[in-house]
C-alpha cells in the first residue's frame, strides 16, 4: 500500500525493504509453495510414472474445491463465514446443467453469465440476511445451507442435465506445454481477473478494514453493512464459478451438495487466512487445496486406505493451525 513512498526513496536498501516486506506479507503462501514443491518431489519418487497426465488430472479435480476455498476466503476476510457454499455450488451447478442441456453452444455463453449472476444474487441474499437480521453469520448461512440445497433439488430432482462442449473443453487438456494444464491456467486467470482489481480498489481495502476491526472501520467512514453484503456477493460469485466447474468437469449437474463447505473452511485456515478476519489472501487457500489433494493422491499411490487419508487431512489441519497459533504467540511475546 505504501509503494509510492517506497518508490520515492531510490536506493538499494529500499528495494531490499520491499523484498523483505513481500516475504513477510506472503510468508505463509511461500511456505505452502515450498511444501507443495516437496510434495511434488515425494510424489515423483514414490510413483516414477507421475507426469503430465497426473498433473492434469489433479488440476481438473481440484477446480471446484479451489473456487469454494476462494469463496470462503472472501467471506472470512470480512469476519464472516459462509456455510452455504456447498449448497450454492450445487444450486448453480444444476441450474447451469439444466440451462445448457441440449442447447446451442452460443446459448451456453449466455447461460454461464446467468449462472454467475445467480451466484451473486444468492450471495447478496445471504449477506442481506446477515446484515439486516443481526443474527450471527454462522447461523444464517447454516440455515441458508438448507434453503439453497432444497432449491437445487427443486431445479433437478436427480443428477442430470448437460454441459456445453466448449465449457468442458476449457478445463481439459494442456495449454502450450504438457506440464501446464488448462484448468490451472483458467483457475489462476479467473481468480486474478476478479480478485486483483478488487484487492487494489477501495472496496478491497474496506473488506480488510471491516475484517480487522468493524468499529474502527465504521468510524473511518467505511460502510460496514455494504462491505459485508459485498463480501457475501463475492463469495456467491466464486461459489457459482465452483458450481460451473462442477458441471463442466462432470458433464452433468448433481443436486446433492458435496463436502465442499467444510473442506473450504479447512483450506482457508491452512491457506493462512485468519478466521478472525482481515488477514490473508486468496492464493494461499488455493495452494492449500492443491496440497490437500496431492496428499490424498500420494496416499493412494502408497496403497494406504483412503479413509486414513481423511484422518491425515484432519490431523494436518489441526497440526498446521497449532503451529500457526504457536508462531503467533511467539511473535506477540
Amino acid at each position: 500500500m505504501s509503494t509510492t513512498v517506497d518508490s520515492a526513496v531510490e536506493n538499494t536498501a529500499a528495494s531490499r525493504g520491499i523484498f523483505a516486506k513481500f516475504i513477510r506479507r506472503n510468508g505463509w503462501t511461500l511456505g505452502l509453495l515450498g511444501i507443495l514443491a516437496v510434495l511434488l518431489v515425494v510424489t515423483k519418487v514414490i510413483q516414477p510414472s507421475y507426469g503430465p497426465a497426473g498433473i492434469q488430472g489433479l488440476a481438473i479435480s481440484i477446480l471446484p474445491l479451489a473456487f469454494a476455498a476462494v469463496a470462503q476466503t472472501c467471506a472470512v476476510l470480512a469476519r464472516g463465514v459462509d456455510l452455504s457454499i456447498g449448497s450454492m455450488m450445487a444450486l448453480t451447478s444444476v441450474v447451469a446443467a439444466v440451462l445448457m442441456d441440449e442447447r446451442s453452444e452460443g446459448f451456453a455463453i449466455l447461460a454461464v453469465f446467468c449462472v454467475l449472476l445467480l451466484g451473486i444474487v444468492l450471495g447478496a441474499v445471504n449477506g442481506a440476511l446477515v446484515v439486516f437480521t443481526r443474527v450471527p453469520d454462522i447461523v444464517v448461512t447454516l440455515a441458508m445451507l438448507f434453503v439453497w440445497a432444497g432449491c437445487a433439488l427443486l431445479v433437478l430432482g436427480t443428477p442430470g442435465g448437460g454441459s456445453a462442449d466448449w465449457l468442458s473443453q476449457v478445463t481439459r487438456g494442456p495449454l502450450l506445454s504438457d506440464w501446464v494444464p488448462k484448468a490451472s491456467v483458467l483457475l489462476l486467470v479467473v481468480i486474478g481477473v476478479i480478485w486483483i482489481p478488487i484487492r487494489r480498489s477501495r472496496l478491497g481495502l474496506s473488506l480488510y478494514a471491516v475484517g480487522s476491526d468493524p468499529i474502527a472501520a465504521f468510524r473511518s467512514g467505511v460502510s460496514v453493512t455494504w462491505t459485508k453484503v459485498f463480501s457475501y456477493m463475492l463469495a456467491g460469485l466464486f461459489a457459482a464459478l465452483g458450481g460451473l466447474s462442477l458441471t463442466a468437469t462432470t458433464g452433468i449437474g448433481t443436486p446433492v451438495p458435496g463436502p465442499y463447505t467444510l473442506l473450504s473452511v479447512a483450506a482457508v485456515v491452512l491457506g493462512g487466512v485468519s478466521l478472525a478476519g482481515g488477514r490473508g489472501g486468496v492464493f494461499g487457500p488455493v495452494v492449500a487445496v492443491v496440497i490437500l489433494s496431492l496428499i490424498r493422491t500420494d496416499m493412494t499411490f502408497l496403497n494406504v486406505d483412503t479413509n486414513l487419508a481423511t484422518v491425515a487431512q484432519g490431523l494436518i489441519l489441526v497440526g498446521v493451525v497449532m503451529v500457526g497459533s504457536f508462531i503467533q504467540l511467539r511473535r506477540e511475546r
Partner: protein
Amino acid sequence: MSLTETPAPSRPRWTTASGVRALFRERPIVPLFGLLAILVVLSEVIRPGIVSANWAGVMVRAAVPLAILAACQTMTMLTAGIDLSVGAVASMSGFLVATLVADTGLPLAILIALVASAIVGLINGVGSGVFRVHPLIMTLAMSLVVLGLANVWQLIRVQTGSGVPSGFRTLGANVVFGFIPMSLVLFIPLALLVMFLLNRTGFGRLLYAIGDNPVASRLSGTKSWQVLIVLYVISAVLAGLAGFLYSGLTNVASVTLADSALLPSVAAAVIGGTSILGGRGGYSGTMVGALILAVISSILSSLGYPEAVRQILFGAMIVFVAAAYTRITSD
C-alpha cells in the same frame, strides 16, 4: 448471567413493551413455549385429529436424541465455542457398540464406546484449550479423523457383521403406555444433570464467565484450559450417549448415522436462545428448541411436500426464529 436475580417490579412487568422484552430476554422459555403451542395448533389445523397423546410421544421420541446433541452445542456455545464433532462421535459410538456387542457383551461394548468418545473430547479440549485452536476448526478436524477411523474399523469388522443390541432398540424406539418414550429414562437424568451443572455449580458459572468475557475471567484467575478440557470431554460423552439412542431409534448401525443431526443440533441451541457468541443461554430453552424442530419437520412431512420444499422451509424457519429472537431481545 442475569438468569434469576431481577428486582421485584411494582406492577406486572409485561404490561409495557420494554417489560415484555425484558421478560423474553430473561425467560426465553416463555416465547418458545408460545411458538411451540402455535406449531401444535398448526399441526392440528393441517391434519385435524393428529394431535394426541400418542403423537406427542412420537414427537418427544424424535426430539430426545437431538436434544442431547444440542446440549453439547449449548454448553460449548456458552464458552463461545462450538462442537462440530458430535455427529461423527455419535455415529461412531453407536457403530462401535453394534460391532462389538457380539464379542464383548453389552456393558463392555458400551464402556469402550464411551471411552472412545471421551478420548475424542479430550483431544478437542486439549486442542482448543491448551493450543488455542479455534473450536470450529478443532472439532471439524476431529470429525474428519473420527469418520476416517470409523471407516477403517468398518473394513476391519466387515466379516463379523453388526447388529444393534435389542436393549438399544427398546431404549431408543419403544413407547410405553402409548405416549411415554423409553428414551426419557436416559434423557431425564441427563437433562437434570446438565441443568444442574450449568445453573448450580462453579463449573457452569465458569462456562458463562469464559464466554461472556474471556479476558476478565482470565484476570480473575480462571484456568480456562482446564474448564475447556472438561467441557469437551462431557460434550463428547453426551454425543456418545445420543449415538446409542440414534442407533436404537433407527435400528441401523452406520458410520454416518448421526451426521445429518449435526446442523439441526446447532439450530436447536440457537432457537433455544443460546448465543453462539457465548455467555448467554441455557439448556431449558434448547430442549424446547429441539422439540420445536421435531414438530416443524413433522408438520412439513404431513403437508406432503417433497423433500426439497421441506428443506427450504426448514432453513427459512431457522432464520426467521433466530431473527425474531435477536430483534426481541436486543437492547
